[in-house]
C-alpha cells in the first residue's frame, strides 16, 4: 500500500537547543525526515529553536520556523500554516513532550491536526512509568518492582517495602534528569525531593535497584501492518546503574546466546505492540541478571532516540528516514534498503564488524561537581568507532575521544585524580581498570568490582598482554607478524611509539609500517555482512592479511577531504558539524568528490547521504593520513592524485591536524596553517597588529610562573589568563590578584601541555563584539557583526548576542569593519574568519582572531539567508567572492538574538555564573522586529520562563549597585513587586524605589530561597562578584535553577530581560518563517 493521500502538509517538530541528553542526533533524524517527506511530495513545515541545525536550513522545508518550542509559538505556526499532521517522533523528548502538551491543550482537535507515528495514548503509556509497568505486567513481562509516588514520604514507604538501594526516576524528564540511587533513607529523601521537582508532573518512580545487571537495548521498528524488525542490538559494557548515554556500549550484543537474544526480541515485539506505537522506531531497554538470565523490561522510547542514531550509523539502516516513511503509510517491504538498493528495508541488519560507543564528559568545566556516573546522563558527546573486532573498535574509540588517550593502553595523558575505586563509575574508571590489569589484578576481581562482563575484561586483558609483549621489542626488531597483530588489536602508531622499548617517534612507526606494507584496508558498512553488493561508500578501516580485500575503490575524480569535529564537547558541537555539511554540499556543487571523515555518530556529516564518501574514523593524524594515502594513491609511493584537505570547518580538531597533514604532503585548501598559527601565536600576532596600528589589550605569553607573574604585574590586574590552542575558553579565567593568578597557572599547565599561557588585560565593563567574515585572498566581506548582550568577561559562547548590534555607534562599527578587513587581508584568509572585539572607553580592541569557521556561522547564516560555510568552502576551493556574488555585508531585517543554554540543572553543585570558561551546551535563536521581543523569544527558546508579572528578587554585588537602580525602576513600572537583599534594598530604598528586604540564606529563614520555593518570585537577578563565588549567591542561584525560575546573572542581561518583558506585555507573540523573512530582507516579498 502506498503512502497516505489524506494528508498534504506535515509539521515536523525539532528538538531545540543542544542539551545534555539531547544533542545533534535529532538534527540528523529531523533532517532525514524533512528530506524524505519532501521527496514524497508533502509540504513540510519545520519548527526548531536551534539555528545551528542543518534541518533549519531553508532548503530542507517549505516553511522553516526558528521559534521557541512552546505551545504558544507552535499554535501561531499551526494557525498560519494549517498543517494536516504533526510528526513528533523525530525531535527527541522535546518534540514528544510538546506534542503531548498540544494534545492536552486541545489544540490538535481544535485545529484538526493528526499526530503521526505515535498517538497520545501510546506516548502516555510509554512515558508514564506506572502505566508502562502495569502494561508490561499485563502482558506477562518482568519489570523491576516499584511504585510511582508523588511525595517524599510515599517514596520512603515504598523503599522500605522493596528494600534499599532504590532507583529514583522522575517521570517525563530528559536524560533521566533529577534521578539518582538512594542507598539509605537520607539519600532517598534528598534525591526524591529533587526528582519530584524535576518532573513536570511531580512524579517519581521508586524502583528495585538492578544495579550490576547487564543492560541491553534493542532498536526496533514497526509499520502499520505490524511488520517488526530489530535494527540493532546494543550491549552496555557498564552495567545497570549508569545511564545508557553515559555507558560504554557495543553493537551488536556480544554475550547473549541466540535463545537469550530471541527472547529479548520477542519481548520487544510484545512491548511495541502493547504500547501501541503504530509506526516508526522505538528503543527498548532491558536488564538481564547475569546469574540467572532473567530479563526485565526497563523502559521504552516511542520515538527516534540517541541510540537509534547510533544504531543507524552502526548498521547503515537509516532509522529516522524509514520512520518518516512508515509514518505516512508505507510498509517496510515497500521501502528499498538504501545500501543494497536491491533488497527491501524489511530485514534485520547483520554486522560483520564491531561497533563501540564511548561517551565524552565535561566535568572539568564544573568544579565542585562529583564526576560520578549514575542514572542521570552527564556526558556532552560521544564517539563511535568501527573495527573488525571488539579490541580494534574499542581502541579506535578511545583515541577518537580526543582526551589525550591513544587507545586503551599506551601513553596516558588523561588527568588522574585521587585513588579511584573502580567500584564507582566515573569517566576515569576505564583507565584505572587498565592500570589494575597491568598490575595483575584478576579478571574476577575486576568483574566483581565493575560489573563488566568477563568477556569484555578478557578483551581488555588481551590488549594489555599484547602491550607487554610489544614492550620487549625495538621498532627495528619488531616481527612483522606481531606488528600486524598489534594493528589488528587496534594499536595506533602513537601507542606503538610509546610502548616499544626504543621509544621511536610516531612518524618513525608510521614509515616503518608503510615500508613493511602494513596498511589498513577499508570496508563497507553494507547492512548485510557482505551477502549482497553494497553501493554506498560508507567505510571503516581494519587490518587484513588477505590481499585484494580493500573495498575503497578509489576514483580518479577531483576530490577533497573535509575533516569533521569529532565527538561533541562544550565549545565544539553542532555548529561545526553544520559547517562541515555545508562544505560537503558546496564542493559537490562544484563537482568535487567529497570525502568526509568524522567519528561522531550523532551528526548529519556522518549520514552516508551527506558526502560522496564517508570514512567513519577517529580524527587522529594516523587515521586521517591513512585515508589520504588510499585516496591519493600514496600508500607506497608519491601521491598519484591530489587530495586536498579542508580543515577550517570542524573546529579545533582539524586545525590541530593541519600541520601534520601539511608536513606529510597533504595540500590544505583555504587559509594556510601558517596563517592559522600566526593568529594563534601571541608574539607574531601582536607584532602584526602593532605594525598595522591596531589596538589589542596589553598582553603577554609565558611558559613559567615567574614570567607569567612579571607579565601580570606589567599589565596590571585584573587579567584574563588562558592556555593557547584551546576552544571554548577551556580553563580560561579572570584573575584579580596574585593569589588567584598563581593558583590558576599551577592548574592550567596540564590543560595544554607544551603550549604556553596567554595573559591579557581584562577590560572591565567593555562591550564585546563578534564578527564573522569571509576572505578570498583579495577581499574580505563581513558576514555579520554581533554585539554581546553580556559584558566582557563572559565567554562568547555563553553570551547572548544580537545581530545587528543595537547599541554600538556607527563610528565604532566602521572601525570594526575596517580592522576586520585589514586583518583578513594580512592573514590572506581564504574562507571564514572570526574576530572578537572589545570596546572600552571609545577604544576598539581586537581580543582574538580565528581564521576558521566559528560557532556563530550558522546563526548568521540563518539570520541573513547566506550559506556562509558553503561560500567559504567554495572560496577555499578557488572561487572568488565576486564569482560567488558575495561582495557586500548582508542586510538583516529586524533583530536576531542568540542565547546560550547552560547545563547547570545537570550538575548540582556547580558554580552558577557566567565566566570566561564556556559551559553552555547549545543555543537558540529568537527573532522579531525589535530587540526586546527577539530577546524574549530567545529566552523562551532557551527554556527560560520569562515572566510578564509577579515578583522580582534583586541581589547584586557592590559594583553593580548603582546600575541596578534603572532596572529596578523599570521593573516597578512594569508592575513587578520587588524583593532585595539588605545591601541592594538599602540602595533602592535610598533612591525611593519600594522593595521588601529579604534575608540572605545565611541569615536564616525566611530567606531568598524560601521566597523562590513559595513561588513568590518569577525573576531573579543575582550578580556574583568576579573571582569569588559567594556561597550565599550560589545557593540562591541554585534554588532558582531548581525551581525553574528565570535567573539572570549579569546586569546587561537584566537590562535586556527588562526590554523583553516590556515587549511581551505590549505585543502578542508572532512568528515568521525564514522563507518569508528572506523574501522581505532581499526586497522580493515572498
Amino acid at each position, binding site marked *: 500500500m502506498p503512502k497516505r493521500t489524506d494528508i498534504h502538509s506535515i509539521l515536523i517538530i525539532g528538538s531545540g537547543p543542544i542539551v545534555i541528553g539531547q544533542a545533534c542526533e535529532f538534527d540528523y533524524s529531523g533532517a532525514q525526515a524533512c528530506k524524505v517527506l519532501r521527496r514524497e511530495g508533502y509540504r513540510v513545515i519545520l519548527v526548531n529553536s536551534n539555528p545551528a541545525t542543518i534541518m533549519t536550513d531553508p532548503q530542507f522545508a517549505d516553511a522553516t520556523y526558528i521559534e521557541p518550542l512552546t505551545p504558544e509559538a507552535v499554535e501561531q505556526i499551526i494557525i498560519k500554516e494549517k498543517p494536516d499532521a504533526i510528526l513528533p517522533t523525530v525531535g527527541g523528548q522535546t518534540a514528544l513532550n510538546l506534542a503531548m502538551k498540544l494534545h492536552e491543550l486541545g489544540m490538535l482537535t481544535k485545529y484538526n491536526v493528526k499526530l503521526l507515528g505515535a498517538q497520545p495514548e501510546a506516548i502516555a503509556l510509554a512515558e508514564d512509568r506506572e502505566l508502562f509497568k502495569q502494561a508490561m505486567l499485563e502482558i506477562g513481562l518482568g519489570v523491576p518492582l516499584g511504585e510511582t509516588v508523588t511525595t517524599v514520604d510515599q517514596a520512603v514507604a515504598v523503599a522500605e517495602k522493596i528494600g534499599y538501594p532504590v532507583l529514583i526516576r522522575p517521570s517525563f524528564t530528559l536524560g533521566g534528569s533529577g534521578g539518582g540511587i538512594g542507598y539509605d533513607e537520607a539519600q532517598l529523601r534528598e534525591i526524591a525531593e529533587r526528582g519530584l521537582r524535576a518532573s513536570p508532573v511531580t512524579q517519581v518512580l521508586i524502583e528495585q535497584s538492578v544495579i550490576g545487571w547487564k543492560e541491553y537495548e534493542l532498536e526496533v521498528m514497526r509499520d502499520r*501492518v*505490524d*511488520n*517488526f524488525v*530489530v535494527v540493532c542490538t546494543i550491549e552496555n559494557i557498564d552495567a545497570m546503574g549508569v545511564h545508557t548515554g553515559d555507558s560504554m556500549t557495543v553493537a551488536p*550484543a*556480544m*554475550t*547473549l*546466546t*541466540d*535463545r537469550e537474544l*530471541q*527472547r529479548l*526480541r*520477542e*519481548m520487544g*515485539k510484545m512491548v511495541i505492540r502493547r504500547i501501541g506505537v503504530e509506526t516508526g522506531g522505538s528503543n527498548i531497554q532491558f536488564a538481564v541478571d*547475569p*546469574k*540467572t*538470565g532473567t530479563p526485565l523490561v526497563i523502559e521504552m522510547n516511542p520515538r527516534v532516540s540517541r541510540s537509534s542514531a547510533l544504531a543507524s550509523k552502526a548498521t547503515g539502516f537509516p532509522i529516522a528516514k524509514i520512520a518518516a516513511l512508515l509514518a505516512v503509510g508505507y*510498509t517496510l*517491504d515497500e521501502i528499498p534498503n538504501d545500501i543494497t538498493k*536491491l*533488497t*527491501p528495508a*524489511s*530485514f*534485520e*541488519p*547483520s*554486522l*560483520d*564488524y*564491531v561497533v563501540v560507543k564511548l561517551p565524552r564528559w565535561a566535568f572539568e568545566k564544573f568544579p565542585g561537581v562529583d564526576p560520578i556516573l549514575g542514572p542521570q546522563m552527564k556526558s556532552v558527546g560521544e564517539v563511535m568507532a568501527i573495527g*573488525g*573486532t*571488539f579490541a580494534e573498535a574499542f581502541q579506535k574509540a578511545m583515541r577518537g575521544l580526543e582526551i589525550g588517550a591513544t587507545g586503551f593502553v599506551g601513553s596516558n595523558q588523561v588527568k588522574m585524580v585521587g585513588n579511584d575505586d573502580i567500584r564507582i563509575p566515573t569517566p576515569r574508571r576505564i583507565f584505572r581498570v587498565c592500570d589494575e590489569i597491568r598490575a595483575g589484578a584478576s579478571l574476577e576481581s575486576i568483574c566483581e568490582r565493575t560489573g563488566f*562482563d*568477563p*568477556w569484555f575484561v*578478557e*578483551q581488555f586483558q588481551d590488549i594489555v*598482554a*599484547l602491550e*607487554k*609483549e610489544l614492550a620487549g621489542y625495538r621498532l627495528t626488531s619488531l616481527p612483522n*607478524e606481531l606488528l600486524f*597483530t598489534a594493528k589488528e588489536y587496534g594499536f595506533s602508531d602513537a601507542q606503538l611509539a610509546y610502548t616499544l622499548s626504543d621509544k621511536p617517534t610516531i612518524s618513525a612507526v608510521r614509515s616503518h609500517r608503510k615500508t613493511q606494507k602494513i596498511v589498513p584496508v577499508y*570496508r563497507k558498512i553494507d547492512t*548485510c*555482512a557482505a*551477502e*549482497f553488493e553494497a553501493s554506498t561508500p560508507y567505510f571503516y578501516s581494519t587490518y*587484513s*592479511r*588477505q590481499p585484494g*580485500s580493500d*573495498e575503497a575503490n578509489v576514483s580518479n575524480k577531483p576530490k577533497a577531504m573535509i575533516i569533521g569535529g569529532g565527538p561533541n564537547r562544550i565549545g565544539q558541537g553542532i555548529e561545526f558539524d553544520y559547517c562541515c555539511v555545508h562544505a560537503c554540499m558546496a564542493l559537490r556543487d562544484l563537482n568535487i568528490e567529497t570525502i568526509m571523515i568524522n567519528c561522531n555518530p550523532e551528526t548529519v556529516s556522518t549520514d552516508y547521504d551527506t558526502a560522496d564518501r564517508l570514512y567513519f574514523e577517529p580524527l587522529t593524524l594516523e587515521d586521517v593520513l591513512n585515508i589520504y594515502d588510499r585516496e591519493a594513491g600514496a600508500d607506497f609511493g608519491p601521491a598519484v592524485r591530489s587530495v586536498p584537505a579542508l580543515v577550517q570547518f570542524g573546529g579545533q580538531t582539524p586545525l590541530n591536524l593541519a600541520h601534520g597533514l601539511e608536513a606529510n604532503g597533504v595540500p590544505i585548501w583555504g587559509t594556510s596553517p601558517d596563517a592559522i598559527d600566526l593568529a594563534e601565536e601571541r608574539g607574531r600576532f601582536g607584532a602584526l597588529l602593532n605594525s598595522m596600528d591596531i589596538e589589542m589589550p596589553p598582553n603577554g605569553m609565558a611558559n613559567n610562573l615567574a614570567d607569567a607573574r612579571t607579565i601580570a604585574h606589567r599589565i596590571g590586574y585584573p587579567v584574563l589568563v588562558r592556555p593557547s590552542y584551546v576552544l571554548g575558553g577551556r580553563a580560561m579565567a579572570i584573575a584579580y590578584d596574585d593569589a588567584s593568578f598563581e593558583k590558576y597557572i599551577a592548574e592550567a599547565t596540564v590543560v595544554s601541555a607544551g603550549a604556553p599561557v596567554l595573559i591579557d588585560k581584562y577590560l572591565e565593563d567593555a562591550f564585546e563584539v563578534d564578527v564573522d567574515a569571509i576572505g578570498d585572498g583579495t577581499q574580505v566581506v563581513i558576514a555579520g557583526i554581533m554585539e554581546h548582550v553580556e559584558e566582557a568577561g563572559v565567554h562568547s559562547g555563553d553570551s547572548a548576542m544580537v545581530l545587528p548590534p543595537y547599541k554600538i555607534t556607527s563610528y565604532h562599527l566602521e572601525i570594526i569593519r575596517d580592522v576586520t578587513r585589514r586583518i583578513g587581508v594580512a592573514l590572506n584568509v581564504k574562507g571564514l574568519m572570526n574576530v572578537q572585539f572589545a570596546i572600552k572607553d571609545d577604544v576598539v580592541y581586537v581580543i582574538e582572531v580565528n581564521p576558521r569557521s566559528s560557532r556563530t556561522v550558522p546563526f548568521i547564516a540563518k539570520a541573513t539567508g547566506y550559506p556562509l560555510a558553503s561560500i567559504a568552502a567554495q572560496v577555499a576551493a578557488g572561487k572568488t567572492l565576486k564569482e560567488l556574488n558575495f561582495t557586500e555585508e548582508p542586510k538583516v531585517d529586524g533583530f536576531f538574538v542568540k542565547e546560550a543554554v547552560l547545563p547547570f540543572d545537570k550538575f548540582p553543585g556547580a558554580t552558577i555564573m557566567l565566566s570566561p570558561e564556556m559551559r553552555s551546551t547549545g543555543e537558540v535563536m529568537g527573532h522579531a522586529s525589535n530587540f526586546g521581543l527577539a530577546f524574549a523569544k530567545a529566552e523562551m527558546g532557551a527554556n527560560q520562563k520569562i515572566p510578564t508579572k509577579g515578583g522580582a528578587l534583586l541581589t547584586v554585588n557592590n559594583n553593580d549597585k548603582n546600575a541596578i537602580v534603572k532596572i529596578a525602576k523599570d521593573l516597578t513600572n512594569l508592575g513587578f513587586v520587588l524583593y532585595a537583599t539588605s545591601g541592594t534594598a538599602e540602595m533602592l530604598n535610598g533612591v525611593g524605589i519600594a522593595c521588601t528586604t529579604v534575608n540572605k540564606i545565611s541569615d536564616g529563614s525566611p530567606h531568598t530561597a524560601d521566597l523562590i520555593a513559595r513561588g513568590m518570585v518569577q525573576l531573579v537577578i543575582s550578580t556574583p562578584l568576579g573571582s569569588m563565588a559567594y556561597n550565599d549567591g550560589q545557593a540562591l542561584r541554585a534554588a532558582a535553577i531548581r525551581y525553574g525560575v528565570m535567573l539572570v546573572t549579569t546586569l546587561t542581561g537584566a537590562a535586556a530581560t527588562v526590554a523583553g518583558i516590556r515587549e511581551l506585555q505590549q505585543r502578542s507573540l508572532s512568528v515568521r518563517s525564514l522563507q518569508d523573512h528572506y523574501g522581505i530582507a532581499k526586497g522580493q516579498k515572498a
Partner: protein
Amino acid sequence: MQAGFLRTPAVLALEDGTIWAGSAFGAIGQRTGEVVFNTAMTGYQEVLSDPSYFNQIVVMTAPHIGNTGVNDADNESRKYWLSGFVVRAASPRVSNYRADSSLDDEMRAQGIVGITGIDTRALVRHIRSAGAMRGVVSSTVLDSDTLVAMARSVPTMEGLDLVPQVTCAQSYTWNTGVGEWGLGSRGTKASRTLHVVAYDFGIKQHILRLLAERNITVTVVPATTPAADVLAMKPDGVFLSNGPGDPAMVTYGIANTKALLGKVPLFGICLGHQILGLALGGTTYKLSFGHHGANQPVKAYGKVEISSHNHGFAVQADSLPAGSGVTHVNLNDNCVEGLEAPGLKAFSVQYHPEAAPGPHDASYLFDRFVQLMEG
C-alpha cells in the same frame, strides 16, 4: 604471555586455488566440504549441531564466535555435523550463566576442525561473487597445492544424497517442549494429544520441541521408512524434516511423500519442503551461494517475517502443478520460501520456522499444522 599472539597455523583452501591463512582452533586435522557462509550474529552452537550442515564448511560472518561457550540445552541434535568451522576471532573466554564448556573444547571433543583469524568478510565476498565452493580446512597439511587438489576432489553438493548419513537408525518418540524458551513460539496447544510421524532427514530438535509444545507426540522415523509403515502408525499428520544435500537425490523420500499425499496432513521444512515440492511434481535447483542466516525477509499473507534460513537448493516456482501454489516468497531474491497443496492438506516452507538460531516470527506455521490435523 608466551607467544600468546602467535598461534598454530591453519589454512582454508578453495577449489578455485585461493588460500586463506589463519590459526587452528577446535580439533587439529583436515576436513573437506562445501564452503558456505552464515550471517546470523548469534547461534553458532545451533549451527554446529544442525545436521543440514553435514559435509559443509561454514564461515560465520559475525566476528566473535564462542563468546557464550556451549551448553547441552541449545544443541539441535546429538552432535556437531559440519566439516569445518571458519571464524574471524574465536573467543577464548566463555561468558554465560548456562555455559557447560568452551566452544574450542567442544569442537576438539567432537573432532570439528576450526580456523580462526580469517578475514571472513573478504572470504564471504569471494564466495558471494564466485558461488559456493568446495574446500578443505586443515591444520595438519599446509601445502597449498596439495590442499587445492584435495578441494577439487570433493564431490559437488549437486547430485549428493547425504540423508542416510544423518538420519536416525531407529525410530524414537519425542515429548519434550521448549521449557522456559517458548516466548513468542509456544503457540496454541492441540485440543487433544495428536500423533505426528516425523521423517528424519536430519531433523533439528527445536522442530520437535515446538511440536511437542503443542500437545503432539512425535514419532521420529528413519528417512527410508516406507509410507505404508508410517500410515500403519495411524498418525494425525506427517512431518518432513530439514536435512543436507541435494533434494532430487532423496528419491525414497520423494516416493514415500507421494504415497502419503492426500492420505494424511503433511508439513515440510527445508529439505522436507523441497521433497514435498518434488513429490508434487515440481523441480528444484541449486542457488549460487544459498541463504544461510537469520535476517531474511519472507512475505506471506500480506506480512513480512524475519526468518532463519539455511538452504542451498530451492523449488522452481513455475514447476509446481495445478492444485499447488507458492505461499511464501523471499523479498531479497523472490525465491520460493513456501508452498501449499490445499486439496492434499500439505504445506511446507523452505526456511526455518523453528528458528534456532533466529527470530520466531514464523512459529505460527506449527499452529497451522495443528489446525490442518484437527480441522
